[in-house]
């Protein structure tokens, strides 16, 4: 409404047209208390040093945002008479433009999360982003969300490492991620090996192996060394069957597992063998038996568990089903058209190979894919013309859907590569984070000790000269923690690894800061709490330090509590 505030006087002025037809007397107009025209006032908004100036009217256009409401008063600086925000000035530019023009734009070079944060700080909902930038914003938001989900899922996946104790679940995880344990890895390689052996045996079976004595024709190896191959086949099938049964046992959802593609491939790989066992040497069914052998080649698909590239290829084909369908459909259409034309063109020729339209299909396919075997060739001029057009159009029709499939494959492949890279980097990242945490924890512990020593010294009424310039915040924080310790009779503890060096540092510092020899005596005399090099519980050293002050010694009950009931705080 306020965006047309300048027009409101005009609207009110135009109301004179209503006066003649008014039945009742019109109400009195509101008289502004403040005679000064508020709209002439300029506001100065200082965002991290960059000053923006605008009319008060402009920001009050949207009263439900931070700048348009009273909320901005919280940021008013009385001394400089301006509104100060400690935020990003580059993004604020866009936010202020929203007030000025009514359209919120999203700059492409800005990070989405930082932009979102600024918007939420200033109380602007992202839905008001203008149409020009809205799609881009939505796309990036979706990408971000997907990535976060990915991260979270993979984190959860790895986070569960410790929890599974069930045998079944352990086996399932071993099957799905071979890198989790050595047994899984061994299993992975063994199955891979046997798949390769099985496929190789199938192939070699059909190679000619030389003559048996007494026979004229060379025999394929399969028939010559029948027993060997049979034993090999049996062994492989044993392994595969065992693997399948184990997977079936370990699967969390058996029905889903049975329906999954990989399990179907497994079944198809081993079933021919069993069916072959069942079938006797009957001539009728031996044909069927031979056909069954063809299915043994499906074993090669079992490699897809071992190869990620193969999985990606399969996934790509699945996701490009629409393009592939289009390709097949358009090819079918073209084949029918050209085959028909060729057949009728070549019909009159004597001894033509184009005996029927279905027979011409073969010619069309071979020509469209630019194979050109030459077993069927047109002889009439018309036929040659049609053949030429056929081959040209074939190139076009096949070339069209291929880039779509290729780009899909590329995208999925890169995505999976990025996931792998991130997983690898995650380990290094976690290690670095752990190191940073540890070092900050060590810093925290050392500061804590210093302040406690100081407090203890203060309690004893000592003067500490050379007082370190620790900021008041740290001192107050440690005082707070110490109050907590006193209240609960528990003591803060830190990682055992760091305490030794810290203790020694602290003692060294204390020696410097406490001039009186009396305390040095205390320090050196191991009064029930020695200063060992071994990792002793921290509580002992704390007791020492608190006794340093000379004040009330730590209550004996507390000592017991220290050892048994100490509190582990997570290092900040």
């Amino acid at each position, binding site marked *: 409404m306020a965006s047309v*505030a*300048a027009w409101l006087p005009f*609207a009110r002025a*135009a109301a*004179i047209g209503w*006066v003649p037809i*008014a039945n009742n007397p019109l109400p009195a*107009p509101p008289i502004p208390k403040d005679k000064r025209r508020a709209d002439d006032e300029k506001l100065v908004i200082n965002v991290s040093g960059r000053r923006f100036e605008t009319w008060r009217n402009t920001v009050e256009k949207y009263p439900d945002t931070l700048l348009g409401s009273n909320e901005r008063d919280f940021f008013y600086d009385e001394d400089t008479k301006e509104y100060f925000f400690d935020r990003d000035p580059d993004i604020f530019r866009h936010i202020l433009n929203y007030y000025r023009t009514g359209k919120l734009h999203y700059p492409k070079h800005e990070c989405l999360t930082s932009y979102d944060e600024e918007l939420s700080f200033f109380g602007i909902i992202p839905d008001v982003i203008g149409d020009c930038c809205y799609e881009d914003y939505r796309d990036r938001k979706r990408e971000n969300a997907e990535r976060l989900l990915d991260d979270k899922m993979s984190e959860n996946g790895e986070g569960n490492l410790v929890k599974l104790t069930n045998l079944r679940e352990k086996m399932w995880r071993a099957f799905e991620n071979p890198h989790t344990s050595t047994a899984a890895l061994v299993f992975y390689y063994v199955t891979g090996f046997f798949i390769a052996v099985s496929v190789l045996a199938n192939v070699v079976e059909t190679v000619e192996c030389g003559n048996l004595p007494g026979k004229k024709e060379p025999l394929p190896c399969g028939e010559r060394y029948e027993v060997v191959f049979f034993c090999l086949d049996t062994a492989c099938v044993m392994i595969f069957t065992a693997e399948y049964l184990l997977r079936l046992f370990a699967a969390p959802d058996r029905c889903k597992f049975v329906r999954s593609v990989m399990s179907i491939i497994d079944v198809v790989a081993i079933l021919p063998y069993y069916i072959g066992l069942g079938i006797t040497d009957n001539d009728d069914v031996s044909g069927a038996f031979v056909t069954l052998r063809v299915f043994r080649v499906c074993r090669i698909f079992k490699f897809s568990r071992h190869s990620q590239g193969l999985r990606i290829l399969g996934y790509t084909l699945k996701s490009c089903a629409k393009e592939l369908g289009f390709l097949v459909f358009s090819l079918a259409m073209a084949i029918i058209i050209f085959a028909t034309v060729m057949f009728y063109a070549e019909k009159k020729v004597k001894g033509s190979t184009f005996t029927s339209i279905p027979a011409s299909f073969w010619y069309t396919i071979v020509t469209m894919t630019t194979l050109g075997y030459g077993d069927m060739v047109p002889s009439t001029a018309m036929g040659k013309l049609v053949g030429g057009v056929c081959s040209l159009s074939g190139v076009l029709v096949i070339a069209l859907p291929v880039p779509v499939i290729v780009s899909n494959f590329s995208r999925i492949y890169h995505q999976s590569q990025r996931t792998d890279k991130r997983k690898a980097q995650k380990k290094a990242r976690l290690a670095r984070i752990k190191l940073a945490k540890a070092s900050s924890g060590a810093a925290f512990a050392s500061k804590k000790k210093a302040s406690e020593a100081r407090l203890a010294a203060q309690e004893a009424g000592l003067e500490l000269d050379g007082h370190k310039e620790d900021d008041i915040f740290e001192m107050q924080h440690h005082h707070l923690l110490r109050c907590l310790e006193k209240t609960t009779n528990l003591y803060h503890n830190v990682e055992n690894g760091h305490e030794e060096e810290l203790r020694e540092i602290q003692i060294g510092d204390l020696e410097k800061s406490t001039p009186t020899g009396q305390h040095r005596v205390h320090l050196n005399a191991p009064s029930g709490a020695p200063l060992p090099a071994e990792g002793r519980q921290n509580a002992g050293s704390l007791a020492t330090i608190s006794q340093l002050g000379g004040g009330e010694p730590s209550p004996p009950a507390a000592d017991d509590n220290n050892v048994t009931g100490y509190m582990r705080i997570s290092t900040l």
Partner: protein
Amino acid sequence: MLASVNINLGRKLVRNWKDKGKSGAATDPEDTSSRYRPGDLQALALSTKFTRREIQFFYRGFKQECPSGNIDEDGFREIYAKFFPFGDSNQYAHLLFNVLDKNQSGSISFDDFIYGLSTLIKGSTEDRLAWTFSLYDVNNDGFITEDEMLQVVGAIYRLIDTTQSDHVSPEERGQDLFTKIDANHDGIITLEEFMTYCSKDATIMSGLDMYNLMWET
């Protein structure tokens, strides 16, 4: 000599044609040659009796909504509709547009706007009534017919929620008013009849007083 006359004529024609285009109408938004520039601020302040600051304020608002310096009827309707979210303001906005657009060019420039505003805000009662008369006089022929009166009354009633049924329908109200104002019952209202009626009717006078009050601050 004939040739030079022809050339001059040609030049004049071209200039006329160009001037027409430059008078303030910017029908083609890409045609930057016809972008509008308002008159001199000082001159405007003198002729409209507004202060400089007031004119500045109005101009800034005007330019914010129509950066090209002119506003056409659609834009004007949009802006006016923002003040009346509950009804249909199109009719009344159309009437207002006609009054403001004195030269019937199809768009209002800032000068038109500010002159109109000056009449209403700073003008005398007679000026305001004259302006109201021209508002009611839709076809600008100097008379208000019954149809025009009904049109205006209907437009005003439509500004508010149109689904409500008043105990008096707008047509009745309009006819009633028309017969009251038309003193000599000749079917048309002249400016004199209008002024006479308005200065006599108590409600209207009090309404005008209220109106004056709005601008006193």
